[in-house]
């Protein structure tokens, strides 16, 4: 069984390859989120019990990669990403095996996860082991007012079975969050909405696991894991460069370099050509 680090790297390789093959997509957001997504799908989520909502739906290539690696669909399906008539749409849809909620318009997935947590909750949330709802939000997404409507409701209803992860890569479509619409103090905002708040390194698997364990053990409050991440993590020329949020087209030399940075030697790169 490959370790989480290996899984996360594979998710990154597949995600950038899907975006290259499709001719468009959001690589920076996938790469920052890949480690948490790997931890979710290969460690944390209990199949058939817990639900996961990717509220930052534009990072779906990373999610599709995880679902593929978990066997929800076959390799041929990867080649359908963003293709007319294809299974893998440009944003997650419940028509795709393994996808728990349709997302793509920022803020709404968080409310959906709130509804899932309310609907799945069985009596008092002190009952450890009950079904849980997980949701990943982008940091720029936190500028949507609906996010704070949902945050207020989750705190009000003391939803211990709701766990939000903020992929805090500090960048959004146009520029840095801080230049676009500042989010700080971010942990204080969540605490003020009656959430259990944890700040972690979103690329450190020990910290991710500890944060999930803390969330599971917390009753009477929803948990938010503010995962400090690097936009474009793992691809040298993308790291920390907002323009790779994109919906960008990766040129042949760019995908070659990306896969090389992710440890795929040139002679094995054709294995990642999913689009025919």
């Amino acid at each position: 069984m490959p370790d989480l680090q290996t899984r996360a790297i594979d998710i990154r390789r597949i995600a950038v390859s899907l975006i290259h093959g499709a001719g468009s997509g959001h690589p920076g957001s996938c790469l920052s989120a890949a480690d948490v997504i790997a931890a979710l799908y290969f460690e944390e989520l209990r199949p058939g019990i817990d639900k996961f909502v990717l509220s930052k739906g534009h990072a779906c290539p990373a999610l599709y990669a995880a679902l593929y690696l978990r066997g929800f669909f076959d390799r041929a399906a990867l080649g359908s990403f963003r293709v007319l008539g294809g299974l893998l749409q440009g944003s997650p849809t419940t028509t795709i095996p393994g996808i728990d909620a349709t997302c793509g318009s920022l803020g709404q997935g968080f409310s959906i996860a709130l509804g899932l947590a309310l609907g799945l909750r069985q009596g008092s949330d002190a009952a450890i082991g009950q079904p849980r709802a997980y949701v990943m939000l982008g940091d720029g997404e936190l500028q949507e007012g609906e996010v704070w409507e949902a945050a207020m409701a989750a705190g009000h209803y003391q939803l211990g079975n709701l766990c939000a992860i903020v992929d805090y890569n500090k960048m959004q479509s146009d520029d840095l969050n801080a230049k676009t619409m500042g989010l700080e103090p971010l942990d204080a905002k969540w605490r003020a909405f009656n959430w259990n708040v944890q700040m972690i390194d979103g690329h450190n698997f020990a910290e991710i696991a500890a944060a999930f364990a803390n969330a599971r053990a917390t009753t009477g409050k929803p948990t938010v894991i503010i995962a400090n991440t690097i936009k474009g993590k793992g691809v040298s020329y993308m790291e920390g460069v907002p323009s790779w949020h994109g919906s960008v087209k990766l040129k042949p030399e760019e995908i070659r370099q990306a896969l090389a940075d992710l440890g795929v030697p040139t002679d094995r790169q054709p294995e990642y050509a999913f689009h025919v």
Partner: protein
Amino acid sequence: MSDNAAFVPSLIGSSGETLREAFGKALTAAAAKYPSLVVLDADVAGGTGTHHFRRAHPDRFIQFGIAEQNMVAAAAGLALAGKLPVASTFAIFALRAVEQVRQSIAYPHLNVKLAASHPGLDAGPDGASAQALEDLAAFRAIPGMTVVSPADPIEMTKAVTAILDYNGPVYLRTGRSPARRIFDESYVFELGRGRIVRAGGDVTIVACGVEVARALDAADLLARDGIAARVVNMSTIKPIDEALLVACARETGAFVTAEDHNVIGGLGGAVAETLARTIPSPIEFIGVQDVFGESGEPDELAAKYGLAGPSIADAARRAMARKGRR
């Protein structure tokens, strides 16, 4: 004539009951039959009628505060968790959540019902900012949405059961002011079917909601001049009853549509789209003429903005005059 047999309504006058009260009571009565039913509110339960449900089933009533976007998208989550959510607010605030309905409910075709009271000029003295004149158009334009606007408390009661039995997203328009009685208990509501509530062969008045009673007023006025107006209660605006409209086109040859809504995109739009494709016919559009309303009582507003019986009767005469004209 189509298989919609002419139906003679029992016009008992005002039932004294509002559509919103009938809605709230019907939901409450449905709780036992639909164990997964939950009702969602955004701080207007006393206004929408869902306070009846809250009183009877507090554990199945979820308060979201004044946050309609969150309520609507959370309803999607509740549906994904196996619940049967009915989210309710005022029609004007439902418009705040149009994109949430589109994206989170209609796109995945989830089994969520959105019920909105205080629509149109019927919202009354709160004025233009409270009078939703665009909701039928907005929700009708979303793929896969069913849009329903019942005419009286009995139809509302039966429509609630019908939409709970239907698996898919529905926008249900209720009403604020006491509603006139159109139907008796023998009435059978069918989703997607219009109903002839007054027979006539000279012109067809297609109405929904509070305008059905006013259309019947118009038919009375027209009868004085020897004009036999047919009145159709088109309570399902989407999918619209095309077969009935085609039959009315063949049998009467002229139309008036009447709705407490802007004349753009609602019932009138739906009727015009259907007839343009099938049997092009003269149509006059009764509704608010693409302006905002103002404060006033519903009947005062209906008179001023041309939604009352006399305006509908005049429109019927204009439509009839256009028969056969090119």
